């Protein structure tokens, strides 16, 4: 084989790989399940470096209950929620560690109700994918996948690295004539706040948040990941707030345990189910809840309104409204958010 021929073959091989990759990524966009969570987690990457002041990581109460946009409008500090339904503690840690490569926030807020529950990787594949499919490939993502595939041998590394390998069967489900390839969301005006509009009146259970003496225990693995998360932030000199959002199934004992845990680890704990905050928040169980553990849109706005005040007072967060580098895009996003939510 002479040199010229060799070169020709190499060029062809490269071209083939390029065409293949394009088609592969198109097929992925076409067949992948598109969750709001994956989209919001993915849109995080488009935020310019070091422009996010508050980073929120954790499960669905954050996703439904905290709106960085409301806080921007009132106080001028930025925020982003990287939350997904039933987020595994390992995923939360990975998301946090990865986010800190892109942003240096003034404050990290972790939702850690899941410190009490053992995460079942075998049963929770859908929730894992909601958290992972929007994440770019990184060392952190690989670590999570490794933990998942070790716990559940039916799941493969490859299917997380290339979601098409997981969703390839969906050619049966989709309408090839109508559905078009839909890439993951590039930019979000919601900043991770996937609000829900439905109103489902709730009632506090009898004796809510009163001591009962019922024993609770931390799940060791979950606790380990939250400790690791706090330690990582400490290392970077970022304060950590452990947050609990309103939830009808919470208890006094759990609240106290997390408070002690936070103190031991040098983090602040804010429990919005404590009587003092409940009265300040003024949530109406008849109108502000989507279900017993999640806010709806009106609840989100009320809660974010109050939380914004509280965070601003506690942490002296910057106001970027006069900084065109940031405010231009955030104001535009606010306009869209306000229009969609009917705030203005």
């Amino acid at each position, binding site marked *: *084989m002479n040199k010229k021929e060799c070169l020709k*073959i190499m060029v062809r091989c490269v071209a*083939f790989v390029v*065409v*293949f990759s394009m*088609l*592969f990524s198109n*097929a992925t966009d076409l*067949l992948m399940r598109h969750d709001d969570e994956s989209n919001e987690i993915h849109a995080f990457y488009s935020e310019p470096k070091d422009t996010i002041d508050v980073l929120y990581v954790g499960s669905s109460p954050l996703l439904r209950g905290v709106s960085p946009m409301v806080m921007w409008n009132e106080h001028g500090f930025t925020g982003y929620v990287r939350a997904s339904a039933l987020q595994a503690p390992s995923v939360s840690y990975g998301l946090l560690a990865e986010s800190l490569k892109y942003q240096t926030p003034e404050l990290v807020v972790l939702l850690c109700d899941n410190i009490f529950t053992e995460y079942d990787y075998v049963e929770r*594949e859908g929730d894992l994918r909601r958290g992972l499919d929007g994440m770019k490939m990184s060392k952190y993502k690989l670590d999570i996948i490794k933990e998942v595939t070790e716990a559940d041998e*039916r*799941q*493969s590394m*490859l*299917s997380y690295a290339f979601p*098409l*390998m*997981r969703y*390839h*069967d969906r*050619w*049966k489900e989709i309408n090839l004539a109508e559905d078009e390839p839909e890439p993951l969301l590039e930019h979000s005006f919601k900043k991770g706040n996937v609000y829900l509009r439905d109103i489902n009146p709730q009632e506090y259970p009898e004796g809510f948040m009163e001591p009962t003496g019922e024993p609770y225990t931390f799940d060791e693995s979950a606790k380990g990941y939250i400790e690791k998360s706090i330690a990582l932030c400490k290392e970077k000199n970022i304060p950590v707030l452990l947050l609990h959002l309103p939830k009808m199934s919470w208890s006094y004992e759990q609240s106290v345990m997390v408070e002690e845990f936070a103190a031991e680890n040098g983090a602040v704990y804010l429990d919005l189910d404590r009587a003092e905050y409940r009265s300040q928040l003024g949530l109406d169980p008849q109108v502000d809840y989507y279900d017993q553990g999640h806010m709806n849109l009106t609840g989100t706005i009320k809660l974010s309104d109050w939380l914004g005040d509280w965070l601003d007072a506690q942490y002296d967060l910057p106001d970027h409204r006069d900084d065109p580098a940031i405010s231009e895009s955030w104001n535009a996003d606010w306009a869209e958010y306000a229009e969609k939510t009917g705030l203005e």
Partner: protein
Amino acid sequence: MAFTSFRFIVFLVLAAAAYFLTPKRCRWVTLFVANYVFYFISGGKIFIYLLATTITTYLATVKIGDMAAKNKIAFNEAKANLDKEGKKAWKAAFAKKKRRILIPTLLFNFGILAVLKYSGFVTSNLNALFAKIGIGAELPVFKFLLPLGISFYTFQSMGYLIDVYREKQEPEKNFFKLALFISFFPQIVQGPISRFGTLAEQLFRANEFSYTRVKYGVQLMLWGAFKKMVIADRAAVLVDNAFGFPETFGGTYVAVAALVYAIQIYGDFSGGIDIATGAAQIFGVTLDKNFERPYLATSIPDYWRRWHMTLGAWFRDYVFYPLSLSKFFMKLGKKCRNILGNYIGKLIPVLIPQFIIFFLIGIWHGAEWKYIAFGCYNGTLIVLGILFEQPLQKLAKKLGIRMNCLSWRIFQVLRTLVLVAIGKIITRAPGVSAAVYMIRSMVENWDMDVLTNGGLLTMGLDGKDLWVLFLSCLVLLGVSLMQESGIKIRETLAKQNLYFRWVIYLGAVFSLILFGVYGLNYNAADFIYRGF
């Protein structure tokens, strides 16, 4: 390590890279190391068995080789003084000497295979027998872990041993080279069963890298993966369902299931062989052909010539000929000719060994009664076929049926396919009685409505999957017919223009990715033939 796993692809790429980067002198060493690494990571902690076979084969062949060399010198010296009878006697005496090495080695190696594969079957059946006739004793039933590819490497190494014994093959003096021949990783899992004479030299020499060859190899692997992942693994869903509930799926469903199972097992086995052959081709090694469009066969013997060809050839050369040419059968044939007449008498030395072979092939498939029944079924068909060949031809002539035309050929192919599919029911059914039940219900409850009233959709595959299965089978049929008429697919494809080629390549890759059955919800059926 399944052939369609990502790990296998990675292993193959690494092994090929290592092979072509090694200096030419040592390339065979790299290949040898790759084989043992493959065997080890495929769960071969029990590779002591492979080692035992390699060592005994090595010692026996080298010893026989030595003896043969010495015998030759001695014979040449003594030849002048020997008459014809003396020469004969000398030869017979030497053959006897060689057999003293050959027989124990054969017994040892087939013994391992028999103990590992069949001891559980034998002891559990003996126990059942004891219980029936009232003997209180119970033998312990052992279940052994079968070493990967044990049937295949045992047959391959024993074939080599017999070749050396017959002095058709010089023994390999280098132990590691012999070990390489017995353990070549693409074919150790499920064949084809190779001969030393055709394979060894290809493994020992330093093969050059060739872009065209690698390309052809990869194409063949893709085609094999298509047959396995798109066709066979999809068919498996329906087959498992239908054979799992024989009471639910009676009548016409059995016929559908048998046909789909025939497609499944062909796609699975020949697909695996194509992957093995393609992988070997990357290293510059051409493996023996193992399938030649078996379902286009015109008769049962023709089918067995086209299905798992290397196993058939092995049995023919090392069992059938020795048996049917043995003094016993030759004498028997002569006697029978006197009693039964020329036509049948001549057939006796062919028919009985043939029946024995099919019995053995049946057992080879697995240690269960149904495989024995399968062997007897095929043996009977072949024997009947031979016995009635001439009478039937006479009958056809009398009736004026033309036989050298396409319609007759199609009739023959369909007839053979039906007989073959019935055989497949026997092997796939949970047991012999279930098989009989299914075949009976197929004959008794025939109901064509099932094909049109949506009954097919109850068999485990939805409409879309059935369409994919149907269309991919059409592709398979089209390719088979092209090959049958002598078209070389890859060579023909290479002559087409670039755009057409790329459409075909990309179409193949993406049909695998999208329509292949793999991943979580499906039980990626391991190659059915692997444990054999």
